[in-house]
């Protein structure tokens, strides 16, 4: 299988309706766990003013950026209207409790 898969931790390490940061040399990735139990990984960078999305309030399947309240859909990375924009999402795989991420989108950009 192609891609750049790495294990980044377990579901239990992320608080429900919360997030954690995975620090990489190609930028930070925010991993979210929603109240319903879904896990999503997106770039930790709001398309508006680069705010750290990992620090926002998680509600349903969305996060609100702590700097200027832009709202991002965690599954698609899309910005919820009326603002416009998109955050990169990272392919994510669960192996039991273990979370695996494919970082190839980031590294290709960094290269």
């Amino acid at each position, binding site marked *: 299988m192609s891609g*750049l898969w*790495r294990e*980044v*931790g377990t579901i239990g*390490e*992320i*608080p*429900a*309706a*919360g997030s*954690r*940061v*995975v*620090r*990489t*040399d*190609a930028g*930070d990735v925010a*991993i979210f766990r*929603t*109240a*319903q139990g879904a896990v999503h990984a997106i770039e930790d960078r709001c398309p508006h*003013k680069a*705010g*750290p999305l990992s*620090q*926002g*309030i*998680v*509600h*349903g399947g*969305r996060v*609100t950026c*702590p*700097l200027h*309240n832009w*709202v991002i859909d965690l599954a698609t990375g899309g910005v919820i209207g009326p603002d416009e924009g998109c955050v990169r999402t990272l392919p994510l795989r669960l192996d039991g409790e273990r979370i695996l991420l494919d*970082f190839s989108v980031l*590294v290709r950009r*960094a*290269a």
Partner: protein
Amino acid sequence: MPAKQKLVVIGNGMAPGRALEKLFEAAPDAFDVTIFNAETRTNYDRILLSPVLSGEKSFEDIVIHGDGWYERNGVTLLKGHKVVAIDRAAKTVTSERGIVAPYDKLLIATGSSPVIIPVPGHKLPGVLTYRDMDDVSAMMVAAQSGGAAVVIGGGLLGLEAAAGLKERGMNVTVLHLMPTLMERQLDPTAGHMLKRELESRGITVITEANTEEIIGEAYVEGVRLKDGRVIPAKLVVMAVGIRPNAALAREAGLEVGRGILVDPSMRTSDPDIYAVGECVEFNGSVYGLVAPLYEMAGVIAMGLSGREAAFVDSALATKLKVTGINLFSAGDFAEGEGRDEVVLRDARAGVYKRLVLQGNRMLGAVLYGDTGDGPWFFQMIREGTDVSDIRENLIFGPAFVGGGKADSGAAVSALPDTAEICGCNGVCKGKIVGAIQDGGLTSLDDVRAHTKASASCGSCTGLVEQLLTLTLGDGYNPAAVKPLCTCTDLSHADVRRLIVAKALKTVPDVMQALEWKSSGGCAKCKPALNYYLLSNWPGEYVDDYQSRFINERVHANIQKDGTYSVVPRMWGGMTSARELRAIADVVDKYDIPAVKCTGGQRIDMLGVKKEDLPGVWSDLNAAGMVSGHAYGKALRTVKTCVGTDWCRFGTQDSTGLGIRIEKFMWGSWTPAKVKMAVSGCPRNCAEATCKDVGVICVDSGYEIHFAGAAGLDIKGTEVLCHVPTEDLALETIVALTQLYREQGHYLERIYKWAKRVGIESIREAVVVDDENRAALYERFVYSQQFSQTDPWAERVDGKDAHEFAPMRHVSFREAAE
């Protein structure tokens, strides 16, 4: 100056309360007033017992005159004193406890008692009437454990009781003797529509139900009807009418029929004795609705202040105060010789309108489903308007009658200035429009605060909103002030009230019970709900960490680059060499790029990396410093001047008071940030007069200010009061803050809260009413025991450690090769 006359009032209900209000307006110093009140409560709004029962309001919400009102107006109120005799020759009254009070004028307002049907079992425990707050409390207790309730009586009160008990979770059956509900206010068609509506809400309605017996051994077990049916119930509420309390008047030799007989000036057969309210009989009628009682009150106030007026027995309008049911009736709508009727029905929309006319005049109207034109019809009935020119389109309302096209505001626009909009408080259209124009009012809450219109039962809210639209045009934007967020249609005020009424204790509970439209809320409502729960249930509610904004989650302020700023507390703005040295060391050790003095006399370290926060805090803690809450909706700072310690002009120890306030109040969460200041003299070097709460020390004590602003808005403070001692200053400030904590909307600063609820109501609660101030103070003190733990120290000890470290570091260097 002539000696004041003595006015004695027997009874302390809504009618005498209104009479006194009007009297004090017309002749403020004419009488020394003494009230004998058999109940132990002050005057409250009985019309609103139903919203209290259903949980939409609390008892505090329906108090009309608090203790302070009596005190301010020099009224002697004797609570729990029942009058047992009137001696008309000696002009005295005597209470059960032996107090004898002389009068020049006497006002009898003994009210009415609920009618009890003397069927077997009517004295069993669990059989209640629906009359006062004690009845409501008893019903609320009974409803807590659920079960079945029977309401006997399908009139206005009975149906409101039934809806309230249903709302509280009971299975409710209404028994009504007549073939249709509310037959005195509704025609049979509207009565049937009402029955269907109640049944669709799960209330069982049995009409033509004749109660034979209330069954039960030691406690109510059910009701048996004449036809043999038995309806099990653990609670039976009798709401079958009222009977005037006229015994006291009869014993005093006054003329009495069903009630105390009065002439149009509301005098009884003794010209020095007036009677008002549900105890009177006028022209063969007795009264139970508030509008005519208030009219009587006005007539009496005029009479007592030397200007005669006459009570006119005019047509009455009725509304049912059950949320979601729109029903209006006015005047006389019985069928009869020489009477015509005009009927409009729209079955799909659930609308029914019927007008009754005689000759060219309207006699009565019944509206169901769409009651917007009610006041317009009512006005024509009362004034006997000739409708011959508009008869064809009359039933379509003023929008069509005028020939113009229909729009929602047309009905209201067509009303004359004298038309009554708010029946509870007797407010007419002209007064509301005038207040909006002259007072620069822009919201429903403003209008309620300034005119009382729609502030009681709220059934005229729609009309008041239309007046706002009509007067302000695009300047009125109801949506801007209404819902808390897009997840709900409820306002902040509604949500706060329902959290208490329904005893909701977690964020998911609130979202479920109040039917949130989103699954998990949003970034607006989550922190608001978390605050409301925290302030309402101190010690019980567990703070929902994920509902807090990042600053309150990590106890530092996020900056534009994702780093944080750290502000340690400096009590009253005082610091020391040791603290400054520790700060300097921390700045060096963690390579903090910027250090700045804040406007609140603190030191701010900017650009701290998130991972470094626990280390920074640990070092600051070691030097004795704790969190300054510069990041929170909380007490931020108390800024002070040097006061009598150093200043040659200082009048009091302003620094000491500032430190004392800050040490007492730090850690408490508030609706929005709270900044305070204490200045040692009126030169005001601490700039206390633009703060949320400020103190100006003077020679004679402490002037307490509040509701200032120096941010988005600039506003000088209002003076709350002057107090002689530092202890009282602290108690007052604490009580003020607690009131704000309990009433403020999330993110609403103190000056906005004060504007919304009115400066007077705050002064009343915090300054005038000593008991209430003490109670507020106690509630604050209670909640403080759960909040005065330094959040920095907790995190140094490992709390929420996951916040401050990345989950993993991942490197791709080798992979890229």
